[in-house]
């Protein structure tokens, strides 16, 4: 494209947007609201993923050591636990420490009892794993060791947690794809209608001897501008909304709601929304014209 034509195309694009300014604004509006919804949903989805991952990371295995285990068996268990790579953090809790904790929990209820004399609690290991999904399997394996009395990991609850978080992630993905397709459809349809409203104009240009690309460029640039603003505005809105949400969580001390940092999340969103808006603007314009160019 020559520089001359390039200038012409930009000028025409701006003139076109201005000439149909209500339509242009409404089209930007459509792109804004659809991408805003998609963006909001992506934020929620990203955070659910993030939170469930950190919840899952808190799943713990407790291994109770059998009272009658020999020193050798205990050694073996310790060695095994220490070198197992699936286990992140292995902490030994002596029976004495366990008793301290129990006392702290029950408070003055146990007052007057001399449990220290004959401590009923066993030694145990508290284990954090980097692969929470592997917990049930690891637990089963550990139960086989001779030094192990029993293994506790919230059987049932953990499995339920995994079912739910997996389902949440799948549903999230599914909804996100659905929403993205919806956004594509809505934006493309709006841009198509906008182009259709100017179909006669396009046809006439063709009759005067304009090449397809000479006609297309201004429309493509219009689409680019529409798509760009249609993506930037919801990003800006989401930046404020999400920032406010994070502030609210912090100011209410709801730190168990472990939200993604604002900047990172926005970058992640921008990575999807900007190309989507601009791409749809451009392609929507370019391809909607097809039927009018064929004269």
């Amino acid at each position, binding site marked *: 494209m020559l520089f001359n034509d390039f200038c012409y195309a930009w000028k025409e694009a701006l003139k076109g947007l201005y000439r149909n300014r209500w339509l242009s604004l409404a089209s930007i509006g459509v792109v804004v609201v659809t991408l805003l919804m998609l963006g909001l949903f992506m934020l929620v989805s990203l955070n659910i993923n993030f939170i469930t991952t950190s919840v899952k990371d808190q799943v713990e295995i407790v291994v109770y050591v059998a009272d009658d285990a020999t020193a050798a068996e205990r050694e073996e268990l310790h060695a095994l636990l220490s070198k197992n790579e699936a286990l992140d953090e292995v902490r030994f809790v002596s029976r004495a420490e366990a008793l301290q904790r129990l006392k702290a929990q029950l408070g003055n209820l146990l007052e007057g009892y001399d449990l220290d004399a004959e401590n009923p609690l066993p030694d145990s290991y508290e284990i954090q794993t980097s692969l929470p999904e592997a917990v049930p399997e690891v637990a089963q394996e550990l139960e086989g060791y001779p030094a192990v009395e029993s293994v506790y990991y919230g059987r049932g609850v953990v499995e339920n947690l995994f079912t739910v978080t997996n389902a949440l992630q799948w549903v999230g993905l599914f909804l996100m794809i659905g929403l993205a397709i919806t956004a594509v459809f809505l934006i493309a349809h709006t841009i198509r209608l906008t182009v259709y409203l100017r179909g006669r104009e396009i046809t006439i240009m063709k*009759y005067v001897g*304009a090449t*397809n690309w000479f006609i297309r460029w201004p429309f493509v640039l219009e689409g680019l501008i529409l798509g760009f603003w249609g993506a930037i505005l919801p990003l800006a809105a989401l930046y404020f909304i999400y920032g406010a949400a994070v502030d609210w969580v912090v100011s209410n001390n709801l730190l168990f709601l472990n939200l993604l940092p604002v900047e990172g999340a926005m970058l992640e969103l921008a990575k999807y929304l900007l190309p989507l808006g601009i791409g749809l603007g451009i392609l929507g314009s370019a391809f909607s014209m097809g039927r009018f160019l064929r004269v």
Partner: protein
Amino acid sequence: MIEAVQLAKRYDKNQPYVLKDVNFKVERGEFVFIVGQSGAGKSTLLKLLIREILPTSGTLKIFGQDLRLMPERRVPYLRRNIGMVFQDFRLLEERTAYENVAFAMQVTGAVAQEIARRVPAVLEMVGLGDKLEARVCDLSGGEQQRIGLARAIVNRPSLILADEPTGNLDPDTSMEIINLLRNINIRGTTVLVATHDREIVDRMQKRVIHLEHGQIAGDQKKGVYARAF
């Protein structure tokens, strides 16, 4: 310049032929009137020449090229060599007279200065020197028709096709417009005019092709608007 051999056209398989057995030749520099009843096929013939539609059978050559063999992407360049006045005007309604005419130059890649110089001059020629900035939809029928004519001649094409270019003009303005076309023709441009205006045809004493129900019923060198039989 133009050569039609056994040219035929029907718009649909189930419909009768709109043009049939059309044979004629137009040389460079000729001035030809195409006359005939309403529905005779005049507009269809002109639409074939700018390849708005394709012939059903037969050959139609223009500038030595067979239109049926012309690839899609050559069509814009063909149209730039032809200035056409459409029966239904086909102007960009929301734009000004100036913009409409300028657009025809822009598509050819003309430089801005040249456009700024020539467009007002051409609009002046058709009597619209004072309507440059008026939007097309705010102009009268005759004024719109003249913008169409201005757009057709602004690129100095080697062929001008005018479909009923005086249908919305009073006799005096009509004569001015036809004289304008005649002057352009004298400088070497080929001109084809489809018209119903008996007065003009009779006065000009030019070649007249008479279409009747899609067939050529007469082709006179210095013809008049009258039945050829």
